[in-house]
């Protein structure tokens, strides 16, 4: 397979895990979480540091998700009284705090210089070296993650998630502790974001704070909105659209200085088009409130 295509498919698989996990919190439960990319970053750094400390990849991969989950719980616990725009601002602030830590805690993260030489995943004596092997590996993980999240959203618990989004107080008077529902969802959502971060850094073998900035949040949020709120299928298709459409710019005679901003313009145009003509996204089942 063409290395360029392989690279795109690997990134798509990782972004699918990241975007679907955001949709669990944002789309299915109505938690306007703009700090999701921080969990991606926490997972990335945790996995990097653990493998560099000699912890086997599989353990690092799972612990990276668990550490992100802990931060997910702490974030939702600290913001439990906030809703809507206020929650969005608080979670965005959380993202900046984590970014600042990545940038300034140099003894741990090497700051802006980043950490190079991250090992490729290896388990049971087998190391994933080629991109094709990595694509197969990440695809299997991606399908498994989507399956788990599918089981969650179609279960009775998934129904409670959606009821929390539609009318939290209405659900509380039916005897449901919506705070616990939100804790669980954020723990799950940030776990998957964390393992996506692990998969990302073990693929590119380098990590730096600039991978986890506001631009990345906008990218993932755009995927969710374009694909549709509370739709797994929509998020998967949305990831393909958002990752692939700007790639078409590569085939235009544009200089590298224009290509970057042109990508952002394409994201913005897709987002505007969706919000104007399909406010629920391609396959959305609810409104973004």
């Amino acid at each position: 397979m063409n290395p360029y295509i392989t690279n795109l498919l690997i990134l798509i698989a990782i972004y699918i895990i990241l975007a679907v996990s955001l949709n669990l919190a944002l789309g299915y439960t109505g938690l306007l979480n703009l700090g999701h990319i921080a969990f991606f970053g926490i997972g990335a750094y945790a996995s990097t540091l653990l493998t560099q400390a000699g912890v086997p990849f599989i353990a690092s991969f799972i612990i990276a998700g668990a550490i992100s989950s802990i931060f997910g719980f702490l974030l939702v616990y600290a913001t439990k009284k906030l809703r809507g725009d206020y929650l969005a601002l608080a979670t965005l602030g959380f993202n900046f705090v984590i970014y600042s830590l990545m940038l300034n805690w140099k003894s741990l993260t090497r700051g802006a210089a980043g950490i190079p030489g991250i090992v490729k995943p290896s388990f049971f004596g087998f190391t994933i070296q080629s991109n094709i092997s990595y694509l197969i590996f990440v695809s299997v993980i991606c399908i498994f993650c989507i399956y788990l999240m599918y089981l969650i959203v179609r279960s009775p618990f998934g129904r409670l998630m959606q009821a929390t989004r539609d009318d939290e107080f209405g659900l509380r008077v039916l005897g449901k502790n919506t705070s616990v529902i939100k804790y669980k969802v954020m723990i799950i959502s940030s776990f998957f974001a964390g393992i996506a971060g692990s998969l990302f850094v073990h693929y590119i073998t380098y990590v730096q704070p600039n991978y986890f900035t506001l631009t990345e949040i906008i990218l993932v949020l755009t995927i969710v909105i374009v694909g549709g709120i509370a739709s797994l299928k929509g998020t998967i298709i949305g990831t393909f659209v958002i990752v692939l459409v700007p790639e078409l710019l590569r085939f235009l005679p544009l200089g590298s200085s224009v290509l970057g901003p042109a990508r952002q313009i394409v994201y913005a145009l897709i987002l505007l088009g969706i919000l104007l003509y399909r406010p629920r996204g391609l396959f959305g089942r609810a409104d973004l409130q």
Partner: protein
Amino acid sequence: MNLDVSNVKKSFGGVKALDKCSLSVEQGKITAIIGPNGSGKTTLFNVISRLLPVDTGKLVFGTEEITLLDDYQVSRLGISRTFQDVRLFENLTIRDHIEIALLNTDESLLKSMFRPQRVVVKRVKEILSLVGLNKPLSTFATDLSYGQRKLLDLAIAIAKPHSLLMLDEPVAGVNPVLRERIKEIIKTLHKRGETILVIEHDMNFVMDLAQHIIVMDAGSVIAQGKPRDIQNNKQVLDAYLGE
């Protein structure tokens, strides 16, 4: 179970919505709360279901003091309610609504993921049949008319395990045919031994249904008794006619 409200006060800024409000709801009876607009009836419902905290006063349900409990804890003790403005989960189906209400606790995540769907369709259909909502179970709440939304709201309150059913203006804005049907549903529930507390402005509806009537004005109880006594109570007439 009995409900006792003692000296409850609730203010919004300088407005006293409830002022030393005291009343009791007896087990097995239909008790109606009436009063002019702004007399504090819905605030009282919100305070009982703990959607609003009280400023002072005491709420006891059965043997349990509920004054400081969370809203969901009060609900789990057996208080079920409807809302004046119907509150439904817009993106869920009729079946989803009833199934959520049938279980009085949170769903366990892992059990919920890996066990087969519970067979509760029979129970869902029984409740829908009781309220006379004849729509496919897969109908979304957004696709229901106002009257059907009222019936679904009532069905949810009935489905939730409860020992006190609180209905906030169950026939407000519905046509006369549906009004009669809702009256019959409430009578059927009463025959089954249910304790019902209802807020309603329609006097014919209230007089025909309730065994005990509580009249509120300016956040306090100004009269209570049997329908016949209330109809002739001068204080009540003054409150309604503004004399």
